[in-house]
């Protein structure tokens, strides 16, 4: 190419509208949803205008009714008294025009295209940025619909690529267009060489927007609409009330009451009212986010939806889950509830349920829910034997149940859990079971394991014990198991290392449909 300027940094050619009919993943440049500037920054502008108008109204009322201006200094009064009103209005209008022009230009300059190999976004007026992501490295595609965006029928598409801050954002797209685009990107990424799929009818009309607001979180034509797990209202409320946060809250309240009662200084009680209100809003936000939780299986991975007013709906292609942890806080134990967290190579900037990062894949569920979700996230472990093993990993008290547990001498450092503290190696995965009071089970797919570690410190050496660590990408799940017999650990180290090599060689999930 004789042109010294990289093509992508030039002024973009006229791009077609994103919500126009036809495929978006056709390799051409497309613009985003026209409401984008409004949704991204225009809200703040409107708020500022609103404040000015409200202030002006006070002044206006004062002038009409004839009440004198208050003692306090007011810029509006000063302006009107000095006859600068015309000038100021001119300045405001000029500023507005510049803003609007800037928003328009930035919208025109923000374009994206999706080719067979990669997704590419370019943006910026003065400082141009150009970001490309390879489709076969996609870790997940998230469609986020903030409440305001839902009102105008727009959605934000976020393509997660492995790495810190490596995500490609397409904000905002038409709601139907976003669903359609996700399907096409996943199709391209899956390695199929089929013909272009028939596009879903565009729902850009006014009724489309309304039906979109009311529609279930999973697009009915793409995924089987039924979620495998139903979030029960009572269970959700119960799980929130029985959280560690509640214990902390009660402790604080008790402390405040005790302090007030003993010192007779009731000032403390009032001081804590704002804090209590803040904590209440924490519960409410957790509650509204988890209420419409859904998880379903699609040909292109599992789809997890969250949110009541602002919704988020993410597709994780197969083989993107690096570790799974099923855990049970102590307070949930009488009710038999569990929580599932995962490690993944990328992190969507949008929060999942309950303000937690998007790594919590089941906020609360009973054993049946856990079984269903594990079937989805660990597609390699669906034979009855493996499922039984997973279940024993959760609720068994230990003993000879398929897991290799700590020896009796480990009770010095595993007071209650030594019977249960153990591992199991099954084809395609390694299971680590820990804890008798705070029970948890970690499953690491062998094909995703990065390396294996074997550790022994002076204390473990005296007890002839050792610890094993499975290294995965960073996340909330830390797969390690302490206090197992040293000889057993050495054998397990070799077996796990073998399993990791074999599974990695046989794994084709990064092109999940081409195998």
């Amino acid at each position, binding site marked *: 190419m004789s042109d010294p300027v990289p093509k992508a940094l030039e002024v973009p050619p006229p791009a077609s509208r994103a919500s126009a009919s036809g495929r978006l993943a056709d390799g051409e440049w497309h613009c985003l949803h026209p409401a984008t500037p409004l949704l991204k920054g225009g809200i703040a502008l409107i708020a500022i205008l609103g404040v000015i108008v409200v202030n002006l109204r006070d002044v206006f009322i004062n002038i009409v009714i004839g009440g004198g201006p208050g003692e306090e200094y007011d810029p509006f009064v000063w302006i009107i008294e000095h006859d600068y009103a015309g000038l100021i209005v001119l300045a405001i209008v000029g500023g507005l025009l510049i803003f609007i022009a800037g928003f328009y230009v930035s919208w025109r300059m923000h374009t994206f295209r999706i080719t067979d190999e990669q997704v590419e976004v370019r943006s910026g007026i003065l400082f141009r940025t150009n970001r490309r992501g390879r489709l076969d490295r996609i870790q997940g595609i998230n469609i986020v619909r903030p409440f305001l965006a839902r009102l105008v029928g727009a959605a934000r598409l976020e393509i997660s690529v492995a790495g810190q801050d490596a995500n490609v954002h397409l904000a905002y797209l038409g709601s139907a267009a976003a669903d359609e685009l996700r399907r096409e990107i996943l199709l391209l990424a899956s390695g199929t060489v089929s013909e272009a799929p028939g596009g879903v009818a565009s729902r850009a009309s006014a009724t489309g927007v309304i039906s979109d607001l009311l529609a279930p979180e999973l697009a009915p034509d793409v995924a089987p609409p039924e979620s495998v797990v139903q979030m029960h209202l009572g269970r959700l409320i119960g799980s929130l009330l029985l959280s560690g946060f509640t214990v902390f809250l009660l402790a604080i309240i008790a402390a405040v009451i005790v302090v007030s009662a003993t010192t007779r200084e009731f000032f403390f009680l009032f001081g804590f009212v704002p804090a209590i209100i803040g904590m209440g809003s924490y519960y409410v936000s957790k509650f509204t986010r988890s209420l419409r939780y859904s998880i379903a299986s699609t040909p292109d991975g599992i789809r997890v939806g969250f949110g009541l007013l602002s919704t988020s709906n993410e597709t994780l292609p197969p*083989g993107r889950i690096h570790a799974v942890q099923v855990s049970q806080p102590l307070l949930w134990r009488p009710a038999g509830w569990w929580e599932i967290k995962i490690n993944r190579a990328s992190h969507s900037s949008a929060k999942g349920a309950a303000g937690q990062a998007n790594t919590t894949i089941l906020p609360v569920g009973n054993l049946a829910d856990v079984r269903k979700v594990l079937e989805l996230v660990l597609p390699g472990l669906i034979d009855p034997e493996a499922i039984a093993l997973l279940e024993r990993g959760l609720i068994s008290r230990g003993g000879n149940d398929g897991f290799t547990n700590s020896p009796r001498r480990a009770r010095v450092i595993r007071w209650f859990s030594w019977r249960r503290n153990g591992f199991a190696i099954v084809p395609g995965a390694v299971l680590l079971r820990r804890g008798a009071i705070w029970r948890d089970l970690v499953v690491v797919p062998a094909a995703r394991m990065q*390396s*294996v570690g*074997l550790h022994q410190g002076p204390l473990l050496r005296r007890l002839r014990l050792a610890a094993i660590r499975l290294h995965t990408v960073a996340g909330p799940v830390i797969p390690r198991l302490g206090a197992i017999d040293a000889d057993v650990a050495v054998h397990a180290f070799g077996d*796990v*290392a073998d399993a990791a*090599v074999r599974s990695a060689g046989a794994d084709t*999930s990064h092109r999940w449909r081409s195998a």
Partner: protein
Amino acid sequence: MRLELATSEWRRVSPKYVVVDLVGNLIFAIIVVSATSVPALVTHTIFWWALPASLAIIFIIALALTPRRVRAMGYQLRDDDLVFRKGLMFQRFVAVPYGRMQLVDINRGPLDRAVGLSELKFVTAAASSGVTIPGLPEADAEELRDRLVALAESRRAGL
């Protein structure tokens, strides 16, 4: 009883690395001990000497163990993975499949350069893997790097 893998011979790091490790730790020990001695020198109180003295004893033990610690480091190139070991008191073994390699670094500090050694770092997608093989002769390190890259290329796997 120490942990031992029932496999073939370990390739040890160069004995010259003892010097590098010793000098590096000695400099660190001198800095720490002299910094903690400042209160004692200023106040002329005998109690303040307890801290630098105990630190000095710990450092002397650690320095005395340096040759054994360096001998405890080793690595093996197995068919499909690299195994690395280190540690005397706190033993650590790591097995990394070649296909998991994201990149290989070769670092040379000033002390390393003086005796012609390199440090090879094998980076995977997991930060906790932490495979850093110190004390390799420069030629060996480069050969090992090229070999690891070739092995990784032939066994390429997804993330």
